[in-house]
């Protein structure tokens, strides 16, 4: 059941809602030889948007399985890297600066 019945045949529909990547684009990419979630993501940006693939990953895995016959067990999600939630670089930089200052004050800054 998994993946199989998650979309209807032959329609070009949006799969990745964040980056607005369509089914056709993803299927073309698979036909061109991309056979992992990671490579599809790099090529099409599907799964690279704000939600980080949480909404579309399963759908893409389903497309991949249908097209390539690869079992889902072989389709590992792409690497998850922090930040897992949107966070502004400004905020990160501020905190980094603060921590470094703290370290310097303690005298163990590297």
């Amino acid at each position, binding site marked *: 059941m998994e993946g199989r019945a998650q979309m209807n045949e032959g329609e070009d529909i949006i799969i990745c*809602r*964040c980056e607005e990547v369509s089914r056709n684009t993803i299927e073309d990419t698979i036909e061109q030889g991309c056979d992992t979630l990671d490579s599809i993501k790099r090529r099409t940006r599907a799964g690279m948007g704000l*939600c980080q693939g949480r*909404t579309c990953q399963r759908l893409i895995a389903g497309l991949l399985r249908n097209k390539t016959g690869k079992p889902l067990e072989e389709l590992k999600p792409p690497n998850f890297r922090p930040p897992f939630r*949107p966070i502004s670089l400004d905020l990160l930089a501020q905190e980094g600066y603060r921590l470094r200052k703290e370290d310097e004050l303690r005298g163990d800054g590297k």
Partner: protein
Amino acid sequence: MGLRIKYHPILGEDLRKDVVSIEVDGRAIPAYEGEPIAAALIASDIKTLRKTKRIGEPRSLFCAKGVCTDCVMTVNGTPNIKTCITPVEKGMKIEKQEGLGKWREEPK
């Protein structure tokens, strides 16, 4: 507020009284303080919360738990705020976000 559930057989009557006003694209909307921004907007029949960057499609609440990011809006000048889990505060200025949104020029 036609979509508000005032009476409910299990939850009882909604007794919240702390109605505040928030501004959505220049229009004043009533909202309960502390409820998610998206809930207040949907209650006022504002369904489109943003337009996508490429096709300009309208989007709305989808997961309601801060994961899918389809409900992001510009709140008090900061874009990409997940309105499904961000509570309403009195006088908030909320804008429908176009694409990735714009940061206000000079942060206050």
